[in-house]
């Protein structure tokens, strides 16, 4: 006998029953990773004879000749083995989830994946975790076809722009996030190591159960749940350093002066008398390639990143638990001397307890999920045209960073060619001393009652909340006429905001012959906006540093200096009823019907209710008898189709009234040191505003071929957003803010293909995935007079005209400007550039100027000639993953990219401000008389047409980025005596390379608070990160 045998055979007659045809078999049971399984059941089929595996995963059992063994273990599928002729067994258990009986989360329940009739996608926690991303969204980036995820900035802790199946609105296009049944506004604070799975509900039918807020899709996050069995403890940690992935080249001293002179001369000037106003002229000329590279000076090379995560999972038959604790810390690559940082602590406690148990089902269960995170951030401004990176690119190189005293250098006067101060100085003074702390709690408490088998009543009370504080200190500084503060300033803010969600549902599963029904009815009541913000700022700290930057240390109240504000959060209520019927006939024909009704307090009483229906159907063809012929190559084929409607209510409340602002200030009367406050209605009321509806049809199939080696998923969809909630711009003559209107229709149409291949060649196991999705976005209707929603002005430079818009017949946020047709080479060409009447079109042009296409045959270039010059929405999202393992080694890579989109790149005002520097990449090969370029115009200082918004600033944004390459080795295979089931050490490169033709710092442009996207005004780039990590499992 090997090991300690525990038999389940009754003790009374062990030997009496021993007959001649009985024999002893032995064996070892391991899981797919080769880890021995303790406590697995081994039973002789049809008897009570059985045993369980010991600590080494081994068993020994006396059985009858030719008996069949049944191996079972929780979480794994049952196996049956014939014993004839064999006495030693090496059994590998297969995880349940690897089978088609795998379940997916569908909202208020789970469903067998093979029966799902909508378009959903599930990403496993392990797959998220192995990306070593600090945010779940970052990890999803290359694993979810049809979901476009773009980083807003490379600054640590930055948010993501996410859209599912195209952008359907100029408003908020974020999906609805549901974490363990609690709706939250974002999931950036979650640690990927806490996540068991993320399910994305893409089509309307899947999302319909969340009707009111599902118009942009739904992302369901399930955190790691407890599992019956011994405690599994794991530790994962990594450490990395970050490097700049790409450099740009601002011009240095001599080049800068030459280019500035050249621009001035092209503008009719004589160039600049540098010697006359540069006090250190000789010094500068002595070092023509020297000067300050402001951009490079911002780089904090080898900025570190680290992450540590502990997880414990286990439980008994009565209670299961899962605990997680993790910490991450990342330094920003750009921002020296400020160096943004982000660190985060995550704590998770999930438990479930069975209180009352019937013979074969649980009558009463209670459970709880708790996710807490605390993040600390120190940030700098990376948005808009005043962002630090752009300032650094356009700052002249002549000014040193520091003066001879080691202080920040600046030019006292606003005068002359030299600007005021370098970006470093301003950064140091204004953006160094800040810290925001955010505490987030997502928790729920639930109970399920199963009075009769199959009928489950579930009641859940969830709370999500955010509380945090922010402090900022700006010292007193003086950097010349434009950049100064009067006194040092202390800012302190606190806030807390909570909501609760109370949901009750009843589901009943039953069977009538081969008809399977799963019926759900439920209600949901959600209230948000419990909490308030309080903020103060004041001048004159007695300590003059950040550490002591609290209001008590700057408590002299001076009217006008002391700012205090305290506001509650917008309260809102959402009251919903929903129902769902899942039906299948013998797991062959499936249908689902969903209805949800919601009332939202965001609308006027008469417009509150919205109704969102959906239907879907599926046909599992491989379960048909006539498909038996194909079974040797086609394992599984399911055809499905769905239609449904979802809603969106995401606007500020009270848009149906004119609200009053009180921030007007006027120096009425005779007081010299204060003002009188004034009030005004700040928005035009729209009493009719109501739900936005998204209407979507989806047709697709899922297939598995060649013995499960090849998986194919295909979806075609047509999604129409109707009565789109927009704040369409109104004429300035209206005199107040534009109201939200149900202002238009947008269509997103496209398809998604997912291919996966996995195979094993002896010990070499490999998997490859390819996801391709295509989307076409088009605005169908906009309800204002011109059919246009205008983008911002002053966006890409001061006084810049509108350059993106939403317009009927075009994609949302397309770039609007002039098309160019090269560069004028000679005056003769200018003279010959005429319309059909022979009138000159650009009479004021000079050789070297851009040729703008004249679209209407008049005699000038004006806004009527502006057309679509680019589309920020990608046509195709692409991702590619490969992984393999061999005898403890593992290797994998993961790449993603987009195709068919454009980026608008402008790192400089191309006009006002001759002291601005150029980036070499911007002017490479520009036109001069001796170098007559046909594409890049001449340099010119002021007020010329090069500044026009044109396709000169538009570039293709296609890229493929190698997000992650990892090589690892599991030492537990080598040192079997270790008490660890896994001891893996790995090395990773993130953002290893990017294949792109884009000239800017980073083609992943998600910056800006506008709805256009794809506008690069100096983006905080994603770093390249080199990491080493370790994973230990016990």
């Amino acid at each position: 006998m090997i090991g300690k045998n525990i038999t389940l055979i009754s003790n009374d007659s062990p030997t009496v029953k021993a007959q001649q045809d009985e024999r002893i078999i032995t064996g070892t049971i391991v899981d797919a990773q080769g880890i021995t399984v303790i406590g697995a059941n081994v039973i002789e089929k049809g008897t009570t004879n059985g045993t369980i595996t010991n600590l080494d995963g081994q068993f020994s059992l006396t059985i009858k000749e030719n008996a069949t063994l049944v191996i079972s273990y929780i979480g794994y599928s049952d196996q049956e083995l014939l014993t004839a002729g064999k006495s030693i067994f090496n059994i590998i258990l297969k995880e349940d989830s690897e089978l088609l009986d795998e379940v997916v989360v569908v909202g208020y329940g789970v469903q067998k994946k093979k029966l799902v009739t909508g378009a959903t996608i599930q990403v496993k926690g392990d797959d998220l975790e192995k990306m070593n991303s600090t945010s779940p969204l970052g990890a999803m980036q290359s694993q979810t076809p049809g979901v476009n995820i773009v980083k807003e900035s490379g600054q640590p802790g930055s948010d993501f722009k996410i859209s599912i199946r195209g952008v359907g609105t100029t408003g908020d296009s974020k999906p609805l996030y549901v974490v363990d049944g609690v709706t939250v506004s974002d999931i950036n604070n979650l640690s990927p190591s806490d996540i068991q799975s993320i399910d994305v509900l893409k089509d309307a039918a899947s999302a319909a159960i969340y009707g009111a807020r599902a118009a942009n899709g739904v992302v369901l996050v399930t955190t790691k749940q407890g599992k019956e069995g011994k405690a599994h403890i794991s530790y994962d940690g990594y450490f990395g350093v970050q490097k700049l992935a790409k450099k740009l080249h601002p011009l240095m001293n001599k080049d800068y002066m030459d280019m500035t002179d050249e621009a001035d001369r092209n503008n009719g000037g004589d160039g600049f008398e540098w010697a006359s106003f540069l006090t250190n002229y000789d010094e500068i000329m002595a070092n023509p390639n020297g000067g300050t590279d402001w951009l490079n000076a911002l780089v904090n090379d080898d900025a570190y990143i680290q992450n540590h995560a502990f997880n414990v999972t286990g439980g008994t038959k009565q209670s299961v638990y899962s605990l997680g604790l993790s910490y991450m810390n990342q330094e920003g690559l750009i921002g020296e001397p400020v160096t943004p940082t982000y660190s985060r602590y995550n704590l998770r406690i999930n438990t479930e307890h069975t209180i009352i148990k019937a013979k074969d089902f649980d009558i009463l269960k209670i459970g709880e999920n708790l996710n807490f995170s605390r993040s600390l951030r120190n940030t700098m401004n990376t948005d808009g045209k005043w962002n630090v990176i752009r300032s650094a690119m356009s700052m002249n190189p002549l000014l040193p960073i520091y003066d001879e005293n080691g202080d920040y250098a600046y030019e006292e006067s606003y005068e002359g060619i030299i600007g005021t101060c370098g970006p470093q100085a301003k950064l140091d003074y204004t953006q160094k001393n800040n810290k925001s702390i955010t505490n987030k709690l997502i928790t729920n408490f639930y109970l399920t009652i199963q009075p009769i088998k199959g009928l489950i009543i579930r009641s859940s009370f969830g709370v999500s909340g955010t509380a945090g504080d922010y402090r900022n200190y700006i010292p007193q500084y003086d950097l010349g006429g434009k950049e100064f503060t009067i006194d040092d300033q202390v800012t302190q803010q606190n806030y807390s905001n909570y909501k609760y969600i109370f949901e009750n549902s009843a589901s009943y599963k039953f069977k009538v012959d081969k008809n399977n029904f799963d019926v759900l009815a439920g209600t949901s009541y959600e209230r948000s906006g419990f909490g308030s913000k309080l903020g103060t700022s004041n001048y004159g700290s007695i300590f003059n540093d950040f550490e002591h930057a609290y209001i008590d240390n700057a408590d002299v109240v001076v009217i006008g200096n002391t700012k205090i504000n305290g506001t509650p959060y917008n309260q809102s209520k959402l009251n919903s009823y929903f129902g769902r019927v899942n039906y299948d006939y013998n797991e062959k024909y499936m249908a689902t019907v969903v209805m949800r009704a919601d009332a939202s307090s965001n609308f006027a009483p008469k417009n509150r209710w919205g109704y969102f229906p959906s239907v879907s159907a599926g046909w599992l063809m491989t379960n048909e008898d006539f498909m038996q012929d194909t079974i040797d190559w086609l394992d599984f084929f399911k055809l499905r189709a769905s239609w449904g409607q979802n809603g969106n209510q995401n606007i500020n409340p009270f848009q149906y009234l004119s609200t009053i602002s009180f921030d007007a200030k006027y120096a009425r009367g005779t007081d010299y040191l204060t003002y009188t406050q004034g009030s005004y209605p700040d928005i035009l009321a729209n009493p009719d505003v109501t739900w936005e509806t998204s209407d979507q049809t989806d047709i697709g199939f899922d297939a598995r071929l060649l013995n499960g080696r090849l998986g194919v998923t295909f979806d075609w969809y047509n999604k129409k957003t109707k009565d789109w909630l927009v704040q369409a711009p109104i004429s300035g003559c209206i005199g107040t803010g534009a109201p939200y209107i149900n202002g238009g229709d947008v269509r997103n149409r496209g398809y998604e293909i997912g291919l996966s291949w996995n195979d094993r060649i002896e010990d070499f196991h490999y998997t490859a995935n390819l996801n391709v999705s295509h989307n076409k976005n088009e605005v169908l209707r906009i309800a204002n007079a011109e059919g246009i929603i205008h983008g911002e002005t002053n966006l890409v430079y001061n006084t810049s005209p509108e350059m993106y818009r939403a317009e009927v017949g075009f994609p949302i946020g397309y770039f609007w400007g002039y098309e160019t047709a090269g560069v004028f080479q000679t005056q003769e060409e200018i003279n010959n550039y005429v319309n059909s009447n022979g009138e000159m079109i650009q009479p004021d042009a000079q050789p070297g100027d851009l040729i703008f296409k004249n679209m209407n045959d008049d005699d000038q270039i004006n806004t009527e000639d502006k057309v679509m010059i680019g589309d920020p929405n990608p046509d195709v999202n692409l991702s590619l993953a490969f992984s393999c393992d061999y005898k403890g080694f593992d290797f994998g890579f993961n790449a993603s990219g987009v195709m068919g989109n454009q980026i608008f790149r402008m790192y400089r005002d191309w006009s006002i401000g001759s002291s601005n520097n150029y980036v070499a990449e911007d002017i490479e090969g520009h036109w001069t008389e001796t170098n007559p370029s046909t594409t890049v115009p001449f340099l010119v200082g002021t007020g010329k047409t090069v500044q026009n918004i044109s396709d000169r600033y538009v570039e293709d944004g296609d890229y493929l980025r190698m997000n992650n390459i990892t090589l690892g080795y599991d030492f537990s295979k080598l040192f079997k005596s270790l008490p660890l089931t896994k001891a893996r050490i790995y090395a990773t490169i993130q953002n290893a390379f990017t294949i792109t033709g884009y000239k800017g710092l980073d083609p992943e442009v998600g910056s800006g608070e506008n709805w256009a996207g794809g506008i690069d005004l100096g983006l905080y780039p994603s770093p390249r990160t080199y990491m080493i990590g370790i994973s230990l499992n016990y």
Partner: protein
Amino acid sequence: MKNKIFALILVFAGLQACSMDTVNLTQIDSATYPKSEDDYSSLLISVYTNAAYTKMAHQHPYLVSELNSDQRFGGGGLHDINVEGLNLFKLASNDMLENCWTNRYTGIYQANFILEKLAENETLDQETKDKISGQAHFLRAYLYMDLARMFEKVPLILTTNQPDEIKQDEPAVIWAQIFTDLNAAIAELPNQTYQEMPADNDGDATKWAAESLMARAYLFYTGFYELDAAPLNEGGTLTKTEVVNYVDDCVANSGHQLLSDFRNYWPYSVSDKDYGYAKAYNLKWVDEFHSNPECVWATKYNGFGDRESTANTLLLAMGMRDQTQVPFGKGWGYGTVNPQTWENWPDNDLRKVASIYSVENEKEWVSGYKKAVSQADETGYWQKKYMPINMYDADHKATGYATVLYGAYNKFTMNTAQDLTLIRFSDVLLMGAELGSSHAQEYLDKVRSRVNLPAVPVTLDNIKTERNHELAFEGIRYYDLLRWHDAEAAFAKVKEVPIESGGVATTMTINYRKDTRGFMPIPETEISLANGGIVQNPGWTSAEAAW
């Protein structure tokens, strides 16, 4: 069992059957606001704020008209195309005056809101209602007048409901509304002399301001469009006699009067210790604490805050580049004075030196002027009515007077506090003379005798000269030229005037384009948002208009 389950579900469903209404805890809305007199006063303050808004200095109607005029050039830095555009009648950008446009309309919307709410109000007494309504009418007229003089045909909007379409109106319709509103304001505003009014109300529109603005509106409309009478709403007309009566009433009953010394009106006279010129004439600034009966209406500023709120950025914009002197402080150098203005101004008029700082004039007793390298359109002449004014502080450093006297922030970009006079009493007198009041000669004499000039007969030519000298640099000149149809002739003289730009000698020629008729370009954004309801003003789509 099943019944129990049903009951349970009903209980859960019932738990949430509560009200869907929420309370707006931070914002008051138009359903309940305004109610009290204070609410209405607060709403009025907001309209004044818009009228006074100077953050975009070059888009403030005062500075627009000054830069448009033949007395001043663009100035500023070498790349300030926005001021240069106004000076040269060129399109510096498509939305060159967008801020000005929306700002005026924002004020108009707010005035409309007040008037609509007041019409529904049943709790306030008539006297209070009149006081509020009178100011709202005055402000709406004032704001429309800015628009009508700058852009001519603008959409006339008199309600807070969103109109079905945005459409330009004819001048006669717009001006009829202006006259009607001013008539209402005159009738409603209290008949209180300047001396009886509380100092705390300084800046509020008064009956006298309304009467004066009526004269200005009437003169512009009838002059520019060459008509005899002005239209009123619903078909009435406003006769010249009525306008003259208003002016006479203002002169006789307002309590407004001329200061004894013209120069004491302007803040440079505050530096009587440090500024040789002020010292030599023993000047004493009248200050702005309800002590200036010559000011009929001004928008108010103080050195209290940053540029976005209550400081007067126009001053900063017009300060000389890169100079810190006593008394003249530094700024962005907008609106240098045309040397011809100085040359054509007789020396015997004390207002010449009282209005223009010639950097070479020894009688200023100011030294240290240095032509700034980056100054555009440098002429060596600066107007001194609206200029940042410095004094010596306790440490003998040249500092803005608002800082030294009142404790405003010690930063030249923040402490410009001078009020912008929009109607000065001498303008009222001269308008009365021009309109043919029975006191015309007396009015003209008053203005001239104050500056020790002999009487001249009341002829249009004499009045033109008088207005040019008395009201120079006060935002009056350009519209005077337009209404007298003198613009073409005046600008024809601005040919090859020697100036320096960036330290390099060059010349200034202003090509006033007759096809514009003197009006400015409508912002392109507004044209496109009006969906064909607004067309660009003539002369602003041509190649000559392009920068």
